[in-house]
């Protein structure tokens, strides 16, 4: 739906590029998945944070999750999950950011924002 309206969808995470995928699998992914391995863009967009000590301990001890495995050595850092809809001049026309990763922008709101930009009714 996003693409049929002439918009592009780009994913950004702090993770190292995924080495478990074959090149064919990488070509099969229809959107760009970008790796911000020095958290440069996360910081520019004011979404960067260091995982709080208590949460880090929980991930390690209870979830068996070591973020360094995905992000690289010493990188206990993440973005606040966020979605932004940009018009062609790069202005944020709609968006949401929430540290609670279970709260995400509604896909219907994303589509509505794109429709408003490209001037499609309905």
């Amino acid at each position, binding site marked *: 739906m996003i693409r049929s309206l002439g918009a592009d969808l780009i994913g950004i995470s702090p*993770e190292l590029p995924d080495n478990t995928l074959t090149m064919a699998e990488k070509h099969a992914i229809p959107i760009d998945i970008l790796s911000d391995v020095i958290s440069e863009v996360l910081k520019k967009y004011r979404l960067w944070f260091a995982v709080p000590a208590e949460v880090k301990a929980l991930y390690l001890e209870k979830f068996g*999750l070591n973020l360094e495995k995905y992000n690289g050595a010493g990188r206990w850092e993440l973005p606040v999950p966020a979605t932004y*809809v940009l018009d062609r001049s790069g*202005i944020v*026309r709609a968006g949401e*950011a929430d540290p609670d990763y279970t709260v995400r922008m509604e896909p219907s709101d994303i589509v509505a924002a794109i429709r408003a930009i490209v001037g499609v009714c309905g």
Partner: protein
Amino acid sequence: MGLRDQLAQFDASRNRPPEIVAILKRGNESVRASGVAGLQIGEHAPDFALPNQRGEMVRLSDRLSRGPVVLSFYRGVW
């Protein structure tokens, strides 16, 4: 059902112990309190160039020259 409701339903179905839920909640609140709030509506999104999954550089301004762009910042695949 919207995505938000689906996610809430999934989260509830995990039946996490209250002490774990409390730690995650405190974590979210501390991040919120630190003022990490992202871009505001109407603000100009900073340009950037980052490698995609195939190692090709993707520049935001190049993509914007073709049409609107939806940026999705996510934590990871884990």
